């Protein structure tokens, strides 16, 4: 079974040379730590920066330079700042190649719910609805089940949706799955996890074809 860093590490393998990538809050943020050194990637943050670098050294924080999680950041050579309209032009116009974000639920059709638990948690969708409505390539990073042990890979989402038929791939602590429109196609197992265990943790239709390899991370 993978921990959060393991999930991030596996997702990092999906990042290709020349990609502009938008990372959501939580596990997705960790992906930046594991991207290969020999490829060129730029990170976009929807609050208005392209070419994000690591967090600043202590004492070098600038209140005017933050990411979408409101964390202080730095920029790399070649970076640029822009307004919110232009930022979402990048996203809506599909100039950002890959969006990695967390989810509370994903359906077997690729619907995603990650912004609201009615009556409990209503923080707002931020840029997530724009991202999932526009991105050509969306990878969800999440635990396979919630804290109560219930599957987060469902036939149908029970929570208010963030977007419909948009998720392409899911990386969880148990597996890598492709969303095919007909079900969750199992691509890889986490180290030490059996197909049966994944099946048990998946409420939506799981498609298992042939031998499922163990992840190479």
């Amino acid at each position, binding site marked *: 079974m993978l921990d959060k860093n393991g999930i991030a590490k596996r997702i990092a393998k999906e990042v290709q040379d020349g990609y502009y990538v938008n990372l959501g809050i939580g596990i997705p943020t960790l992906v930046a730590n594991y991207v290969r050194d020999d490829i060129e990637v730029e990170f976009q*943050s*929807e*609050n*208005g*920066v392209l070419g994000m670098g*690591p*967090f*600043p*050294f*202590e*004492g*070098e*924080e*600038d*209140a*005017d*330079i*933050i*990411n*979408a*999680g*409101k*964390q*202080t*950041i730095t920029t790399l050579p070649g970076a640029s*700042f*822009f*307004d*919110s*309209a232009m*930022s*979402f032009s990048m*996203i*809506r116009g599909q100039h950002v190649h890959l969006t990695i974000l967390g989810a509370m639920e994903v359906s077997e059709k690729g*619907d995603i719910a990650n912004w609201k638990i009615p*009556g409990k948690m*209503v*923080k*707002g*969708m*931020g*840029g*997530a*609805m*724009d991202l999932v*409505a*526009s991105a050509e390539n969306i990878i969800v990073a999440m635990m396979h089940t919630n804290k109560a042990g219930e599957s987060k890979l469902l036939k149908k989402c029970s929570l*208010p*949706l*963030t*977007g*419909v*038929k948009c998720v392409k791939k899911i990386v969880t602590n148990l597996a890598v799955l492709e969303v095919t429109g007909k079900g969750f196609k199992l691509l890889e197992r986490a180290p030490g996890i059996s197909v049966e265990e994944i099946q048990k943790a998946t409420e939506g239709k799981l498609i298992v074809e042939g031998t499922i390899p163990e992840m190479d991370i």
Partner: protein
Amino acid sequence: MINKKVGSVDDALQGVKSGMTFMFGGFGLSGIAENSIAKLVELGINNLTCISNNAGVDDFGLGLLLHQKQIKKMISSYVGENDEFERQMLSGELDVELIPQGTLAERCRAAQAGFPAIYTPAGFGTEVAEGKETREFNGKMYVLEHAFKADFAFVKAWKGDAAGNLIFKGTARNFNPNMCGAATITVAEVEELVPVGTLDPNHIHIPGIFVQRIYQGAKYEKRIEQRTVRQKN
């Protein structure tokens, strides 16, 4: 040169009234109109509709207006990190309309640019699109979203001049430029009001035509919401 400079925040806020709709620039606490907000708190006007990506934190930004119950309705994309907000929303005291961040930006820009409405894919198939017109273009579904109307926009820039020209810094830019000219009166406060002619005409982010009043902010706290650092080896 048409002079937009006003001498004080009091002059800048002439005409604000209870019941009005305001836009506020800023993302989190970055690039917010600290001086205009402080003055609105002092004026105590209420029943306000506020269009702002976030709602501040409990003791800063729009949180200050919330604390005094000056806000009737918030139109935002993300309102976490604010307990008083959550309390007022869940108790029904505060009306909240949550909309996608890109939609928020573009509904401001539409008002600035004279567009009545836009078609965006964001929110299609979700509760955000409920009751709204949807339409297919080239096989993809879009939601019709209308331009905002506001009485005042309160923005904050890094540098500005008496002609109303503005330059922003870093990610403190965010919604500020998109809100300039999107309200009947745009009030800009700046960290540094420089002499006219010293800003390079090529580097101006917002030409003065979109700004009605400009003033130098007294001081800026520029509070950091999530101070995150790495250690030197």
